[in-house]
């Protein structure tokens, strides 16, 4: 496979409601930023990969009507949509294209403007196949309970707490840490520089063990990135971020199996598909000891307890050790392996964009362009993660400061 370099990142500031722009106008801001950052122009781009969750805005085929705002006319365009992991899958689509030699320079963009639509309606439409079957056989209560993202992730949280000893207090602390990190990130949505675990603890319980303060916001935002070859990267930037390894893995849904049948993925916290994807990506990257070789991680954390689960499932410590290491400060901005210095999805959640933002943030850390939330240690290797579907699709991308 050819080496793939990330030469630029463009992001909009994420907010709850961008009332001043429509979707293509918002996406244009990210595209404009990445062209400014790299000094490239549409003529330098060989192909485009885009993605969002069209069901959330109710506006379909955005690649058809948005292309004129990206410089994509008369160029190859592909759209990829995989739920929460959409942005990570979009980036991996571009990596496939450059690594394989099909195209040299690919622009990726991912976005969501959640304030334009109704996320609950969109989520229901993603579950239509399961619910159609269950409802036709007379089930109602269970499908109602599942018609929101939290209805799914609470089972992951309870199971992990049982296995690891994680407490709700620790989830409060994790949520507060992420929101404080976000306060240093110019693009983040929920910035709460002085928030404490006690403040989070005062928020009402939605569904045990998760309270309001443990959940992500709904954001409007967009991200664009440019991926290119080793030869071309040299002419664009002195310090690109390099793709070292990548993999994605799916398995049975964590709460409902296929169309409402029993799921064989019986422990929602185990996340075998994350472990499998991480193993493959690390192997490709030549990483044998992720704990020692990775300096920063951006796992996909829309709910506070996932900080602990994905720290372990990305092999950044032994299984069950994450709560203890968190208390010791290992995951802090100046810790041994800072987790989501950007504030993560807990602070910034434009769904289609969110998983590409994880990769973009790792790239910024390697390029030393993260600004105020740049971690203190030198970043040689970073891991980004996206989670989609019914917590059953995991997408892992490893970046580094040198080519393979």
């Amino acid at each position, binding site marked *: 496979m050819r080496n793939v370099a990330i030469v630029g990142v463009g992001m909009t500031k994420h907010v709850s409601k*961008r*009332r*001043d*722009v*429509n979707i293509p106008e918002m996406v244009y801001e990210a595209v404009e930023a990445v062209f400014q950052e790299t000094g490239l122009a549409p003529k330098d781009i060989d192909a485009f990969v885009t993605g969002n969750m069209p069901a959330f805005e*109710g506006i379909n085929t955005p690649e058809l009507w948005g292309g004129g705002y990206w410089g994509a006319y008369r160029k190859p365009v592909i759209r990829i949509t995989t739920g929460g992991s959409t942005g990570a899958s979009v980036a991996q689509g571009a990596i496939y294209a450059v690594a394989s030699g099909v195209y040299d320079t690919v622009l990726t963009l991912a976005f969501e403007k959640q304030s334009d639509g109704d996320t*609950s*309606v969109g989520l*229901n*439409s993603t579950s*239509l*196949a399961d619910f*159609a*079957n*269950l409802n*036709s*056989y*007379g*089930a*109602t*209560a*269970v499908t*109602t*309970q*599942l*018609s*929101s993202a939290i*209805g799914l992730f*609470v*089972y*992951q949280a*309870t*199971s992990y707490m*049982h296995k690891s000893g994680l407490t709700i207090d620790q989830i409060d602390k994790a949520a507060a840490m992420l929101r404080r990190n976000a306060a240093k990130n110019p693009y983040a949505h929920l910035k709460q520089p002085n928030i404490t675990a006690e403040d989070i603890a005062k928020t*009402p*319980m*939605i*569904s*045990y*063990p998760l309270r309001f303060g443990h959940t992500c916001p709904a954001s409007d935002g967009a991200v664009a990135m440019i991926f290119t070859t080793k030869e071309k990267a040299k002419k664009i930037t002195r310090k690109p971020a390099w793709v070292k390894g990548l993999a994605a893995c799916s*398995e*049975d849904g964590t*709460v*409902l*199996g*296929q*169309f*409402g*049948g*029993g*799921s*064989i993925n*019986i*422990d*929602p*916290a185990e996340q075998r598909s994350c472990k499998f994807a991480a193993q493959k990506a690390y192997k490709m990257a030549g990483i044998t000891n992720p704990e020692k070789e990775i300096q920063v991680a951006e796992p996909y954390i829309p709910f506070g307890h996932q900080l602990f689960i994905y720290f372990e499932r990305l092999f950044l410590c032994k299984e069950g050790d994450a709560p203890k290491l968190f208390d010791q400060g290992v995951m802090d901005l100046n810790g041994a392996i800072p987790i989501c210095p950007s504030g993560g999805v807990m602070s910034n959640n434009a769904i289609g964009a969110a998983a590409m933002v994880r990769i973009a943030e790792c790239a910024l850390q390697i390029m030393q362009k993260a600004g105020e939330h740049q971690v203190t240690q030198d970043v040689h290797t970073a891991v980004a993660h996206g989670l989609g579907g019914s917590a059953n699709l995991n997408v892992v991308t490893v970046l580094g400061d040198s080519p393979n």
Partner: protein
Amino acid sequence: MMKQEGEYSSVSGEWPLSAYKWKTERFFDKYVEGLKRKQITGIRCTGCGSIFVPPTVICCRCLTRLRLENDDDWIRISERGTVLSYTISYMEILPGGLKERKKEDRIIYALVQLDGTDTHMLVELRNLFEEDVKVGMRICAVWVDEPKGALSDISHFIPVK
């Protein structure tokens, strides 16, 4: 730099979910026939031996098509199982947002693995205090008085020793 707030407009009309269709295969038919007799049944995959409750069409472990029409592949399953995970619903999800439930109206949902099966299912748990729910606890199905061959024939689950 953000510009001034713009004007927004919507296209009026309904976009009903009921406009969409999904072929349901009737693959729960034998399962709900069992429920009507107050029996939980599961299907065994002839490829890898996995036992699915409720049933599925294709085994996602080994890609074998399950023989849903073949009585020999269906087996009686215990009404007892183990709680793998649970939640207590403090809020009701309504079209306009979340609404807090009164303490006595909170609902406990559990993922249960019935004995001898390879799958879990989501059920409602009753007859216990919130603080007594535990991962690993043993629970048992409670039937409605007059089962009619529907998923709702299992009313809920309760703790057992």
